């Protein structure tokens, strides 16, 4: 009974945390119209810039395609205040760092997206936003 209750509480906490993390995703206007929130894509690349700015921090990553051509991708994230709540700062990503990024792709098809999760080259999760994802 006791274990069951703890399990229920844990599930409740996870759901609550998911809701909390999802809510700021809606902040500061217009994201849903620009990105497909129902899709998650994954990409690997090298950080070219981490723009720590309000109202949208942005991560730029050089991605090498199968043809050897390098494309600079841009990923938008949250405001400084929202990211600070998650422990992020202006040195969380450094130029030259290898990252794997899961993101919501743009509706327009350009190499841009909204960050959902970021992992370092060892698979360690560095940033998670917008609640759990299944992919």
């Amino acid at each position, binding site marked *: 009974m006791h274990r069951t209750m703890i399990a229920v509480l844990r599930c409740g906490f996870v759901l609550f945390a998911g809701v*909390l993390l*999802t*809510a*700021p995703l*809606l*902040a500061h*206007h*217009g994201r849903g*119209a*620009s*990105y497909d929130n129902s899709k998650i894509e994954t990409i690997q690349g090298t950080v070219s810039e981490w*723009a720590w*700015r*309000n*109202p*949208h921090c*942005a991560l*730029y990553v050089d991605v090498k395609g199968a043809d050897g051509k390098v494309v600079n991708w*841009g*990923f*938008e994230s949250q*405001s*400084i*205040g929202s*990211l*600070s*709540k998650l422990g992020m700062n202006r040195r969380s990503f450094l130029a030259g760092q290898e990252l794997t990024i899961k993101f919501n792709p*743009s*509706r*327009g*098809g*350009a*190499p*841009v*997206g909204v960050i959902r999760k970021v992992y370092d080259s060892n698979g360690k999760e560095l940033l998670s936003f917008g609640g759990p994802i299944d992919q």
Partner: protein
Amino acid sequence: MRNRSVRLIIAAVVGLLVSVVAFGQTKARQQRPATGSGTAKFDPRDFSGFWEGPPPGERPAENARPAFTPAGAEAMKKRMPIYISKNGRDKDVENPGCRSSTCSNDPVHACNPVGFPRLVWEENEPIEFVYTPGRILQLFQWGRTLRELWMDGRKLSTGKDLDNLGPSWFGISVAEWQGNTLVVNTTGFDERAWPDQFGHPLSFDARIEERYTRVDADTIDGTMTIYDPKNYTGPWPYQVKTATPLVRHFKRMAPADVNFFGLKGLFSGITEAMCAPMNEVDDFNKRIRDRAIFGDK
């Protein structure tokens, strides 16, 4: 000589111990958990300190307003919000094609001031209340700006006085205590500003009344009514998406979050959260947001 040295050493040790204890107590005070149960004693007329609104999901509700007047409907036709109305009655007055910051004429997308009431009722960045003689100041982290609530008995600006003052992004606000409820009235709005993300019109002559009551140590409940006969056919008790749709709940921020580099990222009070055009319009929108909707063609 020896006794003096001993006394000095004892004094130094005692001083050190006192410092350590004092530091420990300060640290303990600073690291108290976030907002408490709300059952602590409080002065219902003391709003001083740091507060924040509910999460963005509890933003204003779309369909709570009264019907437009003909002038209001005409004004609404010129608004192109990113938000697309799901409300049938609004479809004829909103631009159906606009879905990005590029084609929307929402002034915040060009980093214009968010203004009042939007900054108080739509954003959820921290707000600090500061009491000064004759005024209560609201300091906003978003836009790093302030709003003055005049408490010195002056009358709400109307007619010729208001006309002389002219429009402003935050209007002119006077406030008074009615019992333990702070009643704020504001006039003199800049008609270019949007009161919410839906792009509703708000006239220069409109009056907005806010009523704030500190219901427990950690909560201020706010209500707002818009009186704008130029644009709406009746008073508009503003609603938000909560279980208590007429009430916006402002929660007290924990000292650990506002005095140090804590959860809110604040080092000392209200920090800077500016929308600078050179960041947002000239850089972010061009490099990311506009490409997201239109692609690179």
